[in-house]
């Protein structure tokens, strides 16, 4: 356990160092635009998995949390001129509050109701944004992001590095949750809520904690988005594709451990990014839908599980 943690920490340091160095070595900004999107999905998948994977509570409303983060960051930056880190932090806090609120309303009953309620969160939040003129409503809101600091060569590289830091922080948080008493309790909840409760696990409080952490990560994933597109409007901020990917990526990668969502997001987001600039059509979403069905039906443990099973078999 300790050895793994040291390895993990070393990995983080190396990845962060690359995040600061790569913008100076790779000249072509395109890779940072694409990299940003991939990392955004790594964060989303990781955040979703804290609740969906560990606790088994499915959240169809990832786009709601994401969009809330997008809009709060855009609003705070354009009206109050808050610095970027504070925008991200505020978005995370809002996401946590939304998560607790959702959880408090629905978690005392079966998980399926929670799932249905999250479907509604997106629509309710989108409706609210439409009706608040300070957020631009349907016309959207132009956001001219901060000038990149000296350590970053340009805005796309800067956004990339910021997103990388958020992604790394999220993965570290997810891993901490997973290996700590929180994760064990959540897995117990997932397996049997009654048995967990009767084993002394405060299931409701634990689920609320998971909702809060998951919501915080999902909202944080959205907070740099206004600076990436320079423009926010409700349809893309609350886009269905975010909710879809949030579920598909962990499921494809594997929901049991932090590596699953990361793997799934790297894979699926990269495929989608390549598809956008190559084949591109409705087939893209069709592909995701079919892959989703295939994994649920034939490989519920995700890629991580397939790999470990294959390796397990290879060993005599």
């Amino acid at each position, binding site marked *: 356990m300790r050895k793994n943690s040291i390895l993990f920490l070393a990995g983080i340091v190396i990845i962060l160092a690359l995040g600061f160095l790569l913008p100076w070595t790779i000249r072509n900004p395109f890779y940072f635009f694409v990299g940003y999107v991939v990392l955004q999905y790594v964060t989303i998948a990781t955040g979703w998995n804290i609740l969906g994977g560990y606790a088994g509570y499915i959240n169809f409303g990832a786009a709601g949390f994401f969009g809330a983060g997008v809009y709060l960051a855009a609003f705070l930056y354009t009206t109050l001129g808050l610095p970027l880190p504070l925008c991200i932090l505020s978005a995370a806090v809002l996401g946590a509050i939304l998560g607790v609120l959702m959880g408090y309303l629905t978690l005392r009953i079966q998980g399926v109701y929670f799932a249905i309620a999250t479907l509604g969160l997106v629509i309710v939040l989108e409706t609210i944004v439409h009706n608040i003129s300070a957020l631009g409503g349907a016309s959207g809101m132009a956001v001219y992001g901060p000038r990149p600091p000296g350590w970053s060569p340009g805005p796309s590289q800067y956004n990339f590095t910021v997103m990388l830091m958020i992604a790394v922080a999220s993965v570290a948080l997810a891993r901490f949750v997973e290996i700590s*008493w929180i994760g*064990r*309790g959540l*897995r*117990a909840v*997932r*397996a*049997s809520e*009654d*048995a*967990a*409760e*009767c*084993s*002394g*696990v*405060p*299931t*409701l409080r634990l689920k609320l904690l998971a909702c809060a952490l998951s919501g915080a990560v999902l909202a944080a994933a959205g907070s740099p988005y206004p600076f990436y597109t320079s423009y926010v409007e409700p349809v893309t901020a609350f886009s269905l594709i975010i909710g879809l990917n949030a579920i598909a990526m962990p499921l494809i990668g594997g929901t*049991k451990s932090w590596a699953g969502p990361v793997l799934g997001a790297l894979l699926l987001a990269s495929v989608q990014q390549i598809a956008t600039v190559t084949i591109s059509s409705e087939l893209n979403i069709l592909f995701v839908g079919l892959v989703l069905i295939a994994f649920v039906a034939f490989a519920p443990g995700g890629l991580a599980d397939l790999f470990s099973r294959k390796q397990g078999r290879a060993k005599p």
Partner: protein
Amino acid sequence: MNDIVLSMKAVEKAFGAFRALGPVDLDLRPGERLGIIGPNGSGKTTLINCITGVYRPDKGSVHFEGRDISHIEAHKRARLGISRSFQIPRPFAGMTVLENLLVPLDYCHVDGSKEERARAVLTSVGLAGRISHPSESLSQLELRKLELARALVGNPKVLIADEAMAGLSGEEIDEVLSILFALNRSGVAVIMIEHIMHAVMRFSERIVCFETGRLIASGTSAEIAENPLVQKVYFGE
């Protein structure tokens, strides 16, 4: 006032128009072996759920070590020392046998190394060889043992064994009984809910019988066996 560890006073529970339980009064002494019998739907499981906190009773109160626990949550009752096993084993799937025991240890305060405690308990119930196996791979008997081990790892004061022997063979029943006897010798009060009559008769110091939500008889094994009301419930007119 330490001669009563758990007491229920006029506890009632209804679902809609259907009164599932009560009113029931029942006391448990520390270290006592209490058997609860009664046909299906007689309110036994509802009673346990009221004790462990899965349900809140509609009326009446539940006291544990002199303290009213009627309104505290199930996990807190578990931490106080009321522990249960489930009728249908509910292992924490996706975890190893050892991890299954670490869950209560994470949340109930136990002195010393958690892992050592878990290993000791697993050895005592005869699961030492299965420590790092996934819990899904266990046999029926092993699942029952795991269920008991998980219930007693947190050092409970009261253990409720809900049909812990259903579907087991004669030898397996003896094995489970010996685990429960051993546990009881260490001072834990055990409530056994069971349909396997010879087992519950052999185990219990006192037996109570439920019928349509009410306690209809109470006494030693011999008394219960002779009780006409109980006979009527079990053998008809």
